[in-house]
């Protein structure tokens, strides 16, 4: 077994991987950018080394610097987490060249899956179902128009190297097609350095359901059930659950078997996820394979009882999978809420800053994977994911109740978070009924929040509390100056007037 692993990531996933390493008696090496010196993952590691300035392109994406740290620290393997270099074939290859084990698939598997068009050509041979469309990048706007005409509108434009919704455009009519194609191509170029865009028939109100797979380096591949990830915003997942409310054992087995065929066709090793679009008739179509550990892996861990990071490390160590497909079963229900630093009152824009108060939830059936702590300043430079709150129960109903209770306990001050959004979703009738599709969240948000809790406390309680705070804890209150909230906006009207005059 490895004695030391470098984690080429930050935030909650770096902390999560380090926890697995510590459980397995493996020493951990953190890397950090200038703004992450005080980040949680640095505090949790056995060793930590700086790798450059805040922009990811100068730190967490620098293959040379990360491999240099691996060499200096004597790390035998690298876990890439998700995002950053996790699906970068060049990095996987550079690790091999440097004699460091990359905990993930081979560069060859990644390259095949990394390009959606190439993956498609390969998978069609393996009998994997696809949404009708081009398997190649579009060469001209004229070709796009012809293909769209043949498929019938609406169609979807997608970046071949894409992911996370970048370079994707839904096109309803012929008149929109050319400008959508241009913007998809330029976005693809900017985001991935590759402007290849292809076209597919758009599935109306699809579900997004994915299958977790694991493959060892001895030709054993298994599937570990599905995750329903239909609750998305701007093509970013917000809430995921396992099992899906609509997948029965028969459909699960069929999807699982297709996912295994996908993985085998790519000679896939380690943990991966095969994503499907599911239409209203429950037909499923291969979307893409994510060649990494997913953000939402905990819901699979809770329903299978497995630790995917432990298994990733064992697989990378050359061991065989310790179980067969038949030995696997799914038990109970798990739901994950992605807690983002974003402002629900300001169109969910990012809300970095200092966390002045953090009351994390705990208790039965609750898992809280976090990269944040009270007093930490959330940097502006990275993804706004702060933590993942996962609820587990013997069934969906209980998982929902536990999450609602945990969200009630959960409190973050100083920055804004989307905690209130989950309180809304979990209490909403369609969600409760399992009626989900990828347009669910946009529709919910468009409705506005009319759902004022019936049992809302009286404002009089807040009025009394305001006074009690001023009396009992004046130190961190401005009440001593006569006014708590007025002081910031009006230190002095004279001063303001003076400044205003100076600007004339």
């Amino acid at each position, binding site marked *: 077994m490895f004695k030391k692993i470098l984690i080429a990531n930050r935030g909650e996933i770096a902390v999560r991987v380090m926890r697995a390493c510590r459980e397995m008696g493996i020493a951990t090496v953190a890397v950090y950018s200038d703004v992450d010196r005080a980040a949680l993952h640095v505090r949790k590691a056995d060793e930590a080394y700086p790798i450059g300035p805040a922009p990811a392109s100068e730190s967490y994406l620098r293959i040379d610097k990360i491999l240099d740290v691996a060499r200096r620290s004597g790390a035998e393997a690298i876990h890439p987490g998700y995002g950053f270099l996790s699906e970068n074939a060049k990095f996987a290859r550079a690790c091999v060249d440097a004699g460091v084990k990359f905990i993930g698939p081979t560069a060859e598997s990644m390259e095949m899956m990394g390009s959606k068009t190439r993956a498609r050509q390969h998978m069609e041979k393996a009998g994997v179902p696809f949404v009708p469309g081009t398997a190649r990048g579009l060469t001209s706007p004229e070709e796009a128009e012809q293909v769209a005409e043949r498929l019938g509108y609406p169609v979807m434009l997608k970046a071949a190297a894409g992911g996370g919704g970048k370079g994707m455009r839904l096109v309803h009519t012929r008149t929109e097609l050319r400008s959508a194609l241009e913007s998809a191509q330029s976005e693809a170029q900017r985001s991935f350095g590759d402007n290849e865009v292809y076209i597919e028939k758009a599935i109306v109100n699809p579900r997004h359901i994915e299958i977790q797979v694991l493959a060892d380096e001895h030709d054993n591949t298994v599937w570990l059930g599905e995750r329903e990830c239909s609750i998305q915003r701007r093509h970013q997942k917000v809430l995921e659950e396992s099992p899906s409310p609509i997948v029965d054992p028969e459909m699960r087995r069929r999807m699982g078997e297709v996912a295994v065929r996908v993985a085998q066709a790519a000679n896939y090793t380690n943990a991966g996820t095969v994503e499907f679009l599911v239409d209203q008739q429950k037909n499923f179509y291969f979307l893409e394979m994510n060649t990494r550990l997913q953000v939402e892996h905990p819901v699979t861990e809770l329903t299978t009882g497995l630790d995917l990071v432990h298994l990733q490390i064992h697989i990378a160590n050359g061991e065989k999978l310790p179980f067969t497909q038949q030995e696997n079963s799914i038990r109970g229900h798990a739901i994950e809420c992605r807690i983002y630093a974003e402002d629900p009152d300001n169109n969910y824009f990012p809300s970095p800053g200092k966390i002045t108060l953090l009351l994390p939830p705990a208790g039965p059936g609750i898992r809280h994977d976090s990269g944040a702590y009270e007093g930490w300043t959330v940097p502006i430079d990275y993804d706004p994911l702060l933590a993942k709150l996962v609820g587990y129960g013997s069934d969906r109903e209980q998982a929902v109740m536990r999450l609602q209770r945990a969200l009630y306990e959960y409190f973050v*001050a100083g920055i804004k978070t989307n905690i209130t959004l989950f309180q809304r979703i979990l209490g909403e009738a369609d969600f409760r009924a399992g009626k989900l599709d990828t347009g669910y969240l946009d529709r919910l948000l468009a409705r506005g929040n009319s759902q004022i809790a019936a049992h809302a406390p009286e404002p009089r309680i807040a009025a009394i509390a305001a006074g*009690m705070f001023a009396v009992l804890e004046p130190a961190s209150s401005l009440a001593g100056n006569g*006014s708590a909230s007025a002081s910031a906006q009006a230190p002095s009207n004279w001063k303001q007037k003076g400044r205003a005059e100076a600007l004339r």
Partner: protein
Amino acid sequence: MVYDVVVGGKPYRLELEKSDAGWKCRLDGKEIRVDAVVPSRDVLSLLIDGQAFEVKREQTPHDLHLWVGSTRFGVELHDPRSLRARRSAAADEKGPRKIVALMPGRVVRLLVAEQGEVEAGQGVIVVEAMKMQNEIKSPKKGIVKKVVAAAGAAVNAGDVLAIVE
């Protein structure tokens, strides 16, 4: 202690007096017995007639919010004896208005140059944080008198970016 408290726009007069068992509190003249402790910073445990409330305090440069359970209340607290409190209540709405950064980030670009005309709600400056671009809009119709922030500059929440008059 006497406070003028505004919760969600509604004013209350609050009088607090220490008593043997907690606090004697008069809210708009109505007497309520309150037991209150601060178990940790910015957290208040209130017991009112056997009912328990956990209240969290969140203070920003601009606002005071109190969360009772998971419900948020915007709160203003004034000491009526303070002159300053009364003055600020009559803040001047006319004249120059600041355009302020709502979040820390980097200025990506300026959409209106100095001395340019803007409509109320028109975007003036684009600030980027966490891979998202946010257009900061003018609070009023007028002329952009001064642009304080330059493209590429790092800004903090509350920083003045420009002045519109």
